[in-house]
């Protein structure tokens, strides 16, 4: 079923590196660095699988520029009261296809949430459907959609996925 990969090994590994750095950034709580993973005019959306599958346009969050991501960071660090928690991202199953000068990438993700004095819990699971572009030698997300199976959210979702 699987033909020889058309994406170079170097690119393939750089793409996996991008996801690794992205996860580390979020899991270590370095939110200010998070918008840097995206292009200026990026699109970032977190969408419930039921809305995605049924073609309903509502997103849990829908941002249309890096500016909106920066505003989100301000929100979660300055304005949005919440009980703090750790995130831990596990990402696997990369499917990388060339898409013009960009790469179309899909992967499965699992995020474990741990609150102080509580046991860890499976918090969000789903699929990334992304478009990655290269610009002066570095890769960034032009588009990132997080489609989550876990439609019933354990109270709230504060930090990015």
């Amino acid at each position, binding site marked *: 079923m699987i033909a020889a990969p058309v994406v170079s090994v170097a690119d393939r590994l750089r793409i996996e590196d991008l996801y690794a750095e992205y996860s580390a950034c979020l899991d270590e709580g370095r939110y200010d660095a998070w918008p840097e993973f995206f292009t200026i005019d990026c699109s970032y959306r*977190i969408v*419930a699988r*039921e*809305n995605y599958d*049924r073609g*309903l*346009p*509502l*997103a*849990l*969050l*829908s*941002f*249309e*520029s*890096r*500016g*909106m991501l*920066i*505003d989100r960071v*301000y*929100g979660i660090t*300055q*304005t*949005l*009261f*919440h*009980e703090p928690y750790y995130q831990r991202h596990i990402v696997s199953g990369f499917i990388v296809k060339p898409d013009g000068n960009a790469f179309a990438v899909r992967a499965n993700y699992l995020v474990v949430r741990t609150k102080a004095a509580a046991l860890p819990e499976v918090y969000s699971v789903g699929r990334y459907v992304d478009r990655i572009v290269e610009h002066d030698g570095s890769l960034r997300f032009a588009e990132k959609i997080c489609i989550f199976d876990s*439609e*019933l*959210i*354990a*109270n*709230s*979702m*504060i930090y990015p996925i």
Partner: protein
Amino acid sequence: MDLLRRDIELDWHPDACARVPYALYTDRAIYERELDRLFYRGHWCYVGLECEIPNFGDFKRTSIGERDVIVVRDKSGAINVVENRCAHRGVQFCQKSFGQTKTFVCPYHQWSYDLRGNLIGLPFRKGVKQGEKVNGGMPPDFDLADHSLTTLAVESWNGVIFASFDRDVAPLRSFVGPEVGNYMDRIFDGRELTLLGYSRQRIPGNWKLMQENIKDPYHPGLLHTWFVTFGLWRADQQSQMVVDARGRHAAMVSRKNDGGKSDAVTAGVTSFKENMVLQDDRVLDVVIEPWWNGPTVTMLTLFPSLIVQQQVNSLSTRQIIPTGTDTFDFVWTHFGFKDDDAEMTRRRLRQANLFGPAGYVSADDGEVIELSQRGFDQHGDLATVCELDGRGMGGADHNVTETLIRSMYGYYREVMEL
């Protein structure tokens, strides 16, 4: 559900509804009485929007209290609500959240029901022929009519569907009453609605805390930095706190002002960020709609199960489904109007970033509700203090008040006999 069937001892503070005993949020026997008296008897509960099931055979599943129900449109176009529980041996037979069907067939023994919930047939009812012999079958006096699904009373408020297990419940409009009904009609005037999508949260707190939250005009200007900073909600706004004759339903009505600093309401408000500016303010691209006639915000609470939100251009229903003393599911249905243009639809969707489980001005409501419940769980024998704007009940012409919460508990005590 293991019914505790025990007496409830509660001693109220002399100030009664200005002091809500923690036990109301933690006691299992009280919770069971709430299911019976508030969700299963005497009240209309929200079950959905007509635009979710536009055609013959369309159905959706939802819950009233802890009982699973199916909302389905029949051939006549009428909407029926039946309990999702087979009359034979109890199977919760329907497992799709949404779908299309002409009959309901239980998987276990294939008893089948029409879309009104009538039992229309069951296998081998007259027995099975084996040579000359006829084996089994139902007793001669077995009457299909005795074994329909539980069917509920149903009414639609211009496209908003309510149902009740209590066939003797008062008509929907008199249940809601004119005071809050006016604000229902303002949004739901018969225009066709369009479905934008769902958000679902499981909030680890007692279900009444969500009713309180939307009857509490005290908190938005304090908890929700966004609101106060951008003037979407502040203590000095022109507001009306409307309540029905019984004190159970309410409307918080307000008109946005220009935001920014104002010593009266921002001085010492630590959540106020004077110099907060957005990098990309398209989430706040508000356009006044003609039908508003003034108010920019109307938050309606229809006791016990529904909240209707109009926050500038964002519209949603929010359904409360209790799942225990200390947890409930909260289902958001965002909608628009058939005649919205693409621009308006995009606007409603952008402003949706403010709401729901991740929203700038509502993710934190879920958080404080969880933390309230934790406070109650720490120690059972205390009471909250709801004395802002006095200890009385009824409406108000401003938002510096907890009167709507007191009013709700006035009604609650009466119905719950507590």
